[in-house]
């Protein structure tokens, strides 16, 4: 069952999606039982940015048909806080640590990557490219040419494996994967959440209304989420993930981490069958924190 991924030897092919599992909080809820049965073969941190972020105003969640829309807004302590407070906690895990980072310019990302490169506790870096370019407003990861430039600019700052987390909100995800590979990425991971929104239930509903979103594509509408729009995950996106992972694995030579709506070993097996080297579990961990272990066991037994 063990699997080699970018030079890391992992006990099994199941890891977590960035931002779907908080180790310090889980230790408060489950104590040492968490570390005794840690469900993932490697741990991916939530997204770290240079400066601290409080995250989006609530409401941050909406239950969609067979899925979840979230608009969390990447709350984190910032790079300095991560290295000082989070890293000591995360380095107690007995699995490799992958740190996910995001910046709005290549320089910012390179600074984050270099800081991660200097810390022995970090085994690899995952780059979240679902971030708007400050000049164009377009997500860095949605335009292949821009993505290749950014990855190529960041690559020299990092000797460790670089994973690019692709966005599904683009015209051609395989072209974006190719661009990441050409820029020097060691692996790609997908899918991130699909852009989605929810409206506040009408006056007949019992739910009180938050104020309308202050800006963005839904200004003036009664958007439920405090951030305006959000990202869809869960069973609702599983078929989309299968198509995108298959397209990417068919295009690039570097390893692929497949994710999107995995709830069982069978779902994980499908992504491995279309070419993924690893799979990541996200929203299913919300429903059962031990889901990763259950899925890994199911893969082992099948």
């Amino acid at each position: 069952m063990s699997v080699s991924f970018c030079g890391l030897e992992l006990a099994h092919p199941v890891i977590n999606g960035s931002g779907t599992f908080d180790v310090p909080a889980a230790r408060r809820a489950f104590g040492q039982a968490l570390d005794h049965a840690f469900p993932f073969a490697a741990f991916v941190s939530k997204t770290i940015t240079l400066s601290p972020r409080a995250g989006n105003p609530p409401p941050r969640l909406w239950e969609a048909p067979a899925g979840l829309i979230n608009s969390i807004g990447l709350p984190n302590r910032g790079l300095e806080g991560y290295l000082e407070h989070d890293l000591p906690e995360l380095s107690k895990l007995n699995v490799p640590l992958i740190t996910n980072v995001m910046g709005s310019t290549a320089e910012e990302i390179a600074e984050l990557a270099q800081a991660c490169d200097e810390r022995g506790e970090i085994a690899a870096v995952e780059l979240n490219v679902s971030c708007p370019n400050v000049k164009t407003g377009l997500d860095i990861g949605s335009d292949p040419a821009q993505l290749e430039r950014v990855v190529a600019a960041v690559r020299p700052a990092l000797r460790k494996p670089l994973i690019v987390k692709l966005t599904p909100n683009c015209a051609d995800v395989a072209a974006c994967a190719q661009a990441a590979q050409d820029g020097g990425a060691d692996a790609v991971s997908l899918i991130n959440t699909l852009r989605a929104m929810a409206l506040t239930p009408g006056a007949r509903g019992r739910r009180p209304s938050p104020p309308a979103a202050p800006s963005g594509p839904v200004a003036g509408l009664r958007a439920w989420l405090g951030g305006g729009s959000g990202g869809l995950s869960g069973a609702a996106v599983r078929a989309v993930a299968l198509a995108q992972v298959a397209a990417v694995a068919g295009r690039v030579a570097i390893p692929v981490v497949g994710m999107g709506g995995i709830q069982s070993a069978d779902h994980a097996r499908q992504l491995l069958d279309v070419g993924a080297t690893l799979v990541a579990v996200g929203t299913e961990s919300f429903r059962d924190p031990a889901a990763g272990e259950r899925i890994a066991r199911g893969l082992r037994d099948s």
Partner: protein
Amino acid sequence: MSASEVPVSAARDRAERVLAPFGRRLLTVTAVDELGAYRVLRAADPDGPMPAAGQFAMLAAAERWGGGEDERPYLSRAFSFARWLADRRSRRSPIGGEAHFLLEDVGPGTHRLCELRTGDGLWVLGPLGAGFTAPEHGRRALLVGGGVGIAPLAIWQDVLGAQTTVLLGFRDGPHAEGAALLSDARVATDDGSAGRRGLVTDLLGEELDRDSHATVYACGPPAMLEAVRALCAERAVPAQLALESGMACGFGACFGCVVPKRDGGYLRVCVDGPVVDATQLDRVEAHLGSPT
């Protein structure tokens, strides 16, 4: 570190937060009792630890969880423990008992849970979060609940003793039947069909007029909690509020259930609460309603 060196805050935290086994457990429903407009869902939890009052669990039906209204429910639903009956054979042990949860059918998730019958399977993750802490020495406990939010006050009364003052508010008579979950509750209803016509905070104001040397424990709809918070702040009465919020996971993973803190930033209702000291909040926001 010796016991005397344990910081007070850490000691308090340990006292009110029972750790959950890692991973959800499949329980068997032992009974579903009608209680006016509510149901009391009871499930045998032989491997579960006795929860602290105020802690909660994430629940999902083992079968047909999904495919209801709008292809929901999908996520588990958070419910306070309303009662815990320790197994007779293990009375000296904190492990094993019958867990009680108070339900109201208001959405696809609660609807499905209300359909459960004796013998059905129930997924449970918990106990989760931080519960109530005992009143400061000399203060009496004043329990204030509204609607389905009376649930954690029942298990807290089990701990504190039946002589505790209990004030409950409900929409109408059928909902007010839920007051039977606690002992000797005084009731207010919006329409006056049971108890006093008015708000539970009217009762609270009178009670504090009579004797304000109390600690208030409150759970209920946001507007009620905000009224309790404001009243207690005005009278300088300590208050612990059991909050509700839309929640995907219950153990700090999703960062979805946050509420703004008084000193800036957010707290996660699931791991920093659900019971919070009222002074941690500027106000109880109106949009805490969960995807039910």
